[in-house]
């Protein structure tokens, strides 16, 4: 150790020769030299202080003193004169002569109990095993040398290496504020094996072996001891502090039982996985792998895991879940936005909680919810079948599928129950059956109020894959489906029929990706066999591209190699046209800095003027409102709906349709204003969309082609007279000569006498406003 140390000391560049009287203190790897730097007195003082500190700390430790005569004494340092100016007077206790240059016997003899060496005679003082830390708890005798093995830490002792200046860090490192990083980087002083204290044989304490209250064989009565020892008589009565129990009460036994029962119940509830509670109750828990944060202080967020796992659609692990704590608010909460699931799982929750098996509820709910999505698919698939009175066989097919899936649900739920708690089973089973019954009923009663497109047949014949709303998505208004052709959008989505343009919901992917437990590619006809039993739906590959499937792209490389190559293509073009002339690559010089144009006009001239745009946007708006009203007014699904682009937005017609004439007016005016005035945010412009969307459902499903042309001329052709009137007049288009259609007016409650004029005026007002602006 020392040899290496010395070597390093030499290598250390700061080991200058200007030592204070050549005093060397060697403590393990710690070689500290009181070095006189060419520094300010401030710094010098610091070094002195450190040196003093070192000596103070060394008192009582072993020291080897070398005198100028060459004698080395081993002893315990008991005192030193810090004030001595030209060195250090030292007192050693129990000195032993280690070696001496001039074998002077006299010196040996002279050694008494203490040895005092004047500073003049001190050549070197070597100190051993000094604990420089200010903390007494670390143990004075911790071998400093052990620090050396501690690696790359920046611990306080560690830093005393090599240089005198390191002493500074000894003090700093321990006294000053240290960050977590610093602390955690200290790999710690080496812990020694803790040993239980046992009294020595014959120790006076041995008679009272068991010191803790629990262990004590004799009961400890502080009152009697107090009285005996100090003559204090206690006035303590426990009933000062608690309610007196009337043990004579006739119902006492009964109450005692009740209390016992409650206590049992509470304790039987288990600790919900809360280690802390378990520990309080004396249950031995395996808390290895948990830190104190987990054990005592961290907020238990495991309830969120369920939510999280549902969000990611990971299959909830039943075994794990069984003892998970689920916050009460989450217990009944379905993690699905699908109404069917919500209703079913909510019901389930109410039924099953009666059985006080709150632990298993979330599990079952989750499991069931998952399964019920399958059921729901089946149910969805049934809808159009019923409506269209398809062949019975077909229906049967679907029914069978439903049954199959219900069986699956039973199986699954049974399993999950089993794995969680067996005593729960009956309750949940009944609830499940009730639920299944409910689903069955629903499926049978449900009718789809519109035609089912032909291409749905294929879909419906095949068992559908499960649809599960992705909880990570905001509620998706199902009924807002605007695919007129695909009225049963859900079914389509579910089954991935994919006729090339079938809209697909994000949710599907989630399910495909994970919940089915199969991450491989789905939807191709050739790997259908790899699927779980419920997912047998086949889907043509490449449907993303519609009719034109991408071909094998072996030739692509050539295409990209030759095409886009300015030189090769120029040559090619040249060869085709005038192969007689020699080919010259077009000189870049000839390229103008402008782009080739076909007309001498600015791009700005292509923008329509204000009038045109205004008119256009008015027309648009009008169309929209008409469509919206159309959709509302026409309950019949066969009524001309509005196709694609011109689909009215539900927001407007929602409030207006149900409101009184006045709100309607305001609505129109306000919106018209907004068109021309500098925008002023008004809350009424932005009702939340979600709830309103379902209103539109009927309309969207109309298969009829309504052209949705923006030109006003086209409108009448597609509009019912009522619709035309209602919308047309407010904007002052064809007002005159039109007879209001009384029926429509009544229905919509929106035309009042003179309303047309009023609106007409309003229209121009807006314009005026606009011009002013």
């Amino acid at each position, binding site marked *: 150790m020392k040899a290496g140390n010395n*070597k390093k000391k030499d290598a250390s560049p*700061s080991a200058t020769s200007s030592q204070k009287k050549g005093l060397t203190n060697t403590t393990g*790897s710690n070689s500290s030299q009181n070095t006189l730097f060419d520094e300010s007195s401030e710094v010098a003082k610091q070094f002195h202080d450190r040196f003093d500190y070192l000596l103070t700390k060394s008192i009582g430790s072993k020291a080897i003193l070398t005198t100028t005569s060459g004698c080395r004494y081993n002893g315990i340092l008991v005192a030193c004169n810090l004030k001595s100016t030209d060195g250090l007077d030292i007192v050693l206790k129990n000195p032993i002569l280690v070696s001496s240059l001039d074998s002077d016997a006299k010196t040996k003899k002279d050694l008494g109990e203490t040895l005092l060496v004047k500073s003049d005679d001190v050549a070197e003082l070597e100190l051993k095993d000094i604990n420089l830390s200010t903390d007494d708890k670390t143990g004075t005798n911790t071998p400093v040398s052990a620090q050396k093995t501690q690696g790359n*830490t*920046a611990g306080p002792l560690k830093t005393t290496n090599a240089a005198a200046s*390191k002493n500074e860090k000894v003090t700093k490192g321990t006294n000053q504020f240290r*960050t977590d990083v610093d602390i955690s980087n200290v790999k710690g002083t080496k812990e020694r094996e803790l040993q239980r204290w046992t009294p020595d044989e014959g120790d006076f304490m041995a008679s009272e072996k068991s010191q803790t209250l629990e262990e004590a064989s004799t009961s400890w009565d502080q009152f009697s001891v107090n009285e005996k020892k100090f003559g204090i008589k206690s006035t303590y009565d426990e009933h000062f502090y608690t309610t007196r129990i009337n043990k004579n009460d006739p119902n006492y036994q009964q109450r005692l039982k009740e209390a016992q029962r409650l206590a049992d119940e509470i304790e039987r509830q288990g600790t919900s996985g809360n280690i802390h509670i378990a520990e309080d109750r004396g249950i031995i828990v395996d808390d290895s792998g948990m830190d104190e944060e987990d054990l005592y202080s961290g907020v238990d967020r495991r309830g969120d895991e369920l939510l999280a796992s549902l969000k990611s659609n990971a299959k909830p692990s039943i075994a794990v879940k069984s003892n998970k704590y689920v916050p009460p608010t989450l217990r009944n909460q379905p993690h699905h936005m699908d109404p069917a699931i919500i209703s079913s799982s909510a019901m389930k929750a109410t039924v099953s909680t009666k059985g006080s098996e709150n632990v298993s509820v979330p599990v079952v709910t989750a499991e069931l919810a998952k399964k019920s999505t399958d059921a729901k698919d089946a149910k969805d698939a049934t809808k159009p079948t019923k409506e269209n009175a398809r062949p019975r066989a077909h229906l049967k097919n679907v029914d069978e599928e439903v049954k199959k899936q219900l069986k699956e649900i039973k199986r699954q739920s049974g399993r999950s129950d089993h794995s969680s708690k067996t005593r729960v089973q009956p309750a949940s089973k009944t609830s499940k059956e009730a639920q299944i019954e409910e689903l069955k009923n629903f499926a049978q009663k449900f009718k789809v109020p519109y035609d089912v497109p032909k291409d749905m047949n294929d879909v419906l014949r095949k068992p559908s894959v499960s649809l599960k709303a992705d909880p990570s998505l905001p509620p*998706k208004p199902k009924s807002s489906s605007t*695919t007129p052709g695909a009225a049963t959008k859900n079914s389509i989505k579910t089954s991935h029929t994919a006729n090339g*343009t079938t*809209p697909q*919901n994000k949710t599907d*992917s989630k399910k495909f990706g994970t919940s089915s437990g199969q991450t491989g*590619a789905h939807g191709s006809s050739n790997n259908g066999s790899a699927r779980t039993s419920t997912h047998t739906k086949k889907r043509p590959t490449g449907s*993303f591209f519609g009719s034109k*499937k991408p*071909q*094998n*792209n072996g030739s692509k*490389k050539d295409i990209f190699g*030759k095409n*886009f190559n*300015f030189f*090769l293509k120029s040559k090619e073009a040249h060869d085709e046209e005038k192969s007689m002339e020699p080919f*010259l*690559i077009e000189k*870049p*010089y*000839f390229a103008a*800095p402008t*782009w080739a144009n076909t007309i001498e*006009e600015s*791009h*700005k001239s*292509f923008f329509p003027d*204000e009038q045109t745009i*205004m008119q256009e*946007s*008015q027309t648009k*708006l009008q169309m929209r409102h008409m469509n919206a009203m159309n959709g509302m007014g026409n309950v019949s699904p066969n009524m001309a709906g509005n*196709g*694609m*682009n011109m689909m009215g937005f539900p*927001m*407007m017609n929602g409030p207006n349709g149900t409101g009184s004439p006045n709100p309607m007016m305001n609505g129109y005016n*306000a919106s*018209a*204003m*907004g*068109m*021309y005035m500098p925008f002023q*945010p008004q809350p009424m*412009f*932005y009702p939340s*969309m979600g709830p309103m969307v379902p209103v539109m459902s009927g309309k969207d499903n109309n*298969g*009829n082609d309504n052209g*949705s042309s923006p030109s006003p001329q086209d409108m009448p052709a597609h509009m019912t007279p009522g619709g035309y009137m209602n919308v047309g007049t407010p904007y002052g288009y064809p007002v005159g000569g039109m007879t209001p259609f009384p029926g429509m007016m009544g229905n919509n409650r929106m035309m009042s006498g003179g309303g047309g004029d009023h609106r007409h005026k309003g229209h121009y007002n807006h314009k005026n406003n*606009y011009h002013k*602006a």
Partner: protein
Amino acid sequence: MAIKSLELYLFERGLVGTYPLEALKNSTVGIDVGHYVSRLLSAKKEQYLDAVGGFPTTLNLFLESDLKVFEEFNITPIFIFEGSLSQNNLINSGHFNANGNVNSLDSMDQNNSGPVGTSTNAATATTTAGSGSSRESGGNSDKDIALAQRNKAWTQWKNMISANQPTYIDQPPVPHEPFRYHTTVDSHRYQAGLIQYFIKHDIHYQVAPFAAWSQLAYLYKQGFIDTIFGPTDCLMLSEVDRFILGMEFPNKDFRYIDKNRVLKEFGISLKEFVDISMTVGNTLQPTTLPPLQIYPSNKLFEIALEMVLNSGTNFYLYQLGNEVDSTTHSYLEQFQRAVSHLKYMPVLKDSGKVELYINDFEHINHHHSNGKSSQNIENDNEQQDNKKLETSTSLPIPNDVHDFITQRLPNEYYFYKSLGLVSGKLLDAITTGVYPEEAPLDGGASNSYRKLVTDSVAIFKDKELNLLTQSINRYFQMKPIKQVKWFASGDSTTLLNRTTPSIFDKLNHLIIKTGDGEKKKFTINSFIKLLNNSSDLVKDFISNDVLFPNSVPLEKKLNSSFDLLATALLRSLVQLEFFQYDFDKKILKPTQWGDILLKFNSLQIEPEFQENLLILLVFLKTNVLTLGEEFQPSINSALSDHTLRTYPQESNDILLLTRVLTLYQVKQKPASYHGPIDKKTLAFRDHLDFVRENMNDMFEAILVSSLTANEFNKLKYDNYDWQREIVAKLPFKLELPNILMAMMWQFFLQKYLHNGNSKSDAMTLVNNVFNTFNTITKLEEQFDTSFKYLEQCSKLFKEVAGARLMKNNEATAFENAVTLCKNALVEN
């Protein structure tokens, strides 16, 4: 950047569909690289990239696994890089003022743009749909935000360093503030690196002349690709009905958007959709325009849509109506430019020419709305019909396309750009008239960096522009081009692109033509060898005849990539004064610097280090900062105060070492870096990278001038050959290494000094601090090889100092420093 806030909204509305990747089997997918990378390097990844520099290594990791998946399904990816910015984007990204804190030189009032949402970009809504990101920022563009974040992080770091001073001895503190947050990684950080990767892996790529997705639109229409993987901007394309928004490789499925379905669900026409998109902001028009600026950035689209639906708002009309207000005057123009750009998108056509691709979104709408059938099946047929109609209708092209795009360059230039042969910054300078010098990663506060920027005009820029403008339209030769610096944007420097005779005329007798160029691989090493083998440089490399006239037969021209590149390098070195050359006097001899370069091989400098050391030589030659000189104003060292005070000599040594080590790339596994950082080292790296970029520009300019002059048989190569033979071999192309190795040595030595000179302790520290268990497999080996590199540098510096091109004491100091390393590496 995509249409702001739209992606999230599409997810909310459930308008993003999913297909398994299987559905793409055998297809060719065109990928917008910017969009793709923004998804890979999302907010949480590579947050400290800007603090260490270099290539974002995680990119390779993702790319590799993604390419594997593509291969599995026989999908051919075509990667399209973003090209030049259009006028709107140039303004928005601070091109005209180099992102300095001053008003735009243009009349544009860009500081009024209010909150900018990049939520769609940054949030990667595929995974975080529903949660959304609502970042409010006062900044204008992505770039502004990135810069602000970077500044913030540096400030935090500085504070942390001073706060840690009392306790920091040899355990370097780690910064907590990310250096990049919710912004995309600047494409120039990865473009060259990715191109090299693609070439190496035989993946086809193109650099689009302008917006990548408009190039994709063209490729899609022409059937070169089967589908587009791009940003939401693709919704504005009339002829793209559905495109891929995101790929979820782990799940093996992808997200797509069906345009018609979206429009249907929104209840608007494409024209209205474009109207909204232009107002909320998109790639072509990055600013959020009034009246939407007051709304939360993550709701913009939703709000705008409601305004349209409820009140028939036409946003163009709104801009028109507010035109009189002089402060917002520009919004109208911005709007118009963007709409026009959308209609006329310059794309690289298969003819190799850049022409306008007409995206007639206004008319397709009529077709759709007139005869739209609601049946999905019929859609397909109908759209095909529409397409036919579409091709027949073509819009008139206005005469001021340059107003909303930029001025046009010769097709040949665009072709080089599409190959990645030219980086494009110089070309943009030619079209826009501005060469912006933006702040480097460290902020560029040092006087030396600023001097370097100023000096670069004379050393590089004037010559480069002369080379590039000489062969193109006279207009560009006359056009004033300014260098705009971020630190002095009021004080722009006009670049001198006219010299007589032109630089090319001066250089065109310098020709390296080897008989066996075909077999040789061009590297600096082989170049030096070639020159060393020549007994008479004048005789071998000065040709009496020039090669560019058409009368010269093809076989007399340069025919191999080696000859082409070596000629370009020799000419570059003449420009950089490594060689003295005079045709009339028949002089070609190396200067002192050139001598040193030619000694690279005899000094046994390994070929892999030669390129970077050449950069270092050029840097030393600029003489803005010597190797051991402190920055002015000084930058905090990452070494602890204790170290600096106790070991002043060693600290100096470490400074020298770290600076030289910025040119050494540690072999690391792809991983997001998070660990200690060192601004002082980074600042030096920025100096070197600036020189590197300029050398690259210089080399490219000379190469392009040579190519355009027809000195090379350009018909010889197809695209793949161009890429493999030329682009892949271009020197100075890749960004310099990150500063990891420099920092590892720095903290290794610091620990070594403090810890009783124990190598193992110090190595453990490096292991822990840099988490090298995960990133660097053979740490000690890396130390050993980098040490060899240092030794070679030491030899080099001795040589340089011997030629009095560097202070003698610095060379000696470096030698000492290397000795320190040597001692430290030997276990004791």
